[in-house]
């Protein structure tokens, strides 16, 4: 068993960080690229990002 009680939380922290940053930045990247053809997409992807951060709750 060793120190598995320590490695568990560390793994979860990395997983959580990857999702917390990866999802909104991915959508923003798509929006920025898409805005080359449709300028409103950058606004919409930014709105998605703001909504994502609101989802964490008070």
């Amino acid at each position, binding site marked *: 068993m060793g120190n598995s009680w320590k490695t568990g939380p560390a793994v979860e922290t990395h997983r959580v960080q990857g999702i917390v940053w990866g999802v909104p930045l991915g*959508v923003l990247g798509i929006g920025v690229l898409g805005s080359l053809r449709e300028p409103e997409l*950058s606004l919409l992807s*930014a709105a*998605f*990002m703001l909504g994502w951060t609101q989802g964490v709750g008070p």
Partner: protein
Amino acid sequence: MGALGPLGKVAGHHGRWVLQVGLYTAAGSLSSALVGFLLGAAGQALGMGISPLWKAVGVVWLLALLGRSLGKLRFPLPQWRRQTRDVWAKRFSWEAAAALWGLDIGLAFTTRITFSGYWGPAGVAILLSRPMLGMMLFLAYWWGRAALVWTAPLLFPSAAATPWVMDALAYQRPAFQALHRLGLVAMIGGLILQIVSL
């Protein structure tokens, strides 16, 4: 949403979880779309959006929100300090409760706001004065909010991991704050792109 039903990874309950979060997302989409449409229509009725000047006003508004978020500016923003009603989960079926929560939270103005960036899409929807764009802005905002719920099966790999993940999420608040500021910067960039592409 976790209070209403088991997470997607819990054996035997995947279908119920998907239906519950689907109802929540769909109901919130309805109320968000309505709010965004009405804000755009209100701007239109007030005669905003005709001149590109209003987009510049939008940039100033977003910069003010960013300054407030960074602690450089201080000004009050109205918000209703309430959370959605837990009692709905006891009074109604879980399908109805999920839909009611979505409708309520999708309205956005009726529940407590975590970060002031919410007022970014609200201000831009009024200033650009295009009801359909206002609707799309609020739908994008809501889908971002609901997306965090949809990622729960990824965030919570098993029931046993829940305490660790909850701790990890609590430590992510600075990350959410940073992403919120980045969202405001991205929205400023989007408006500037609209101004220069006229």
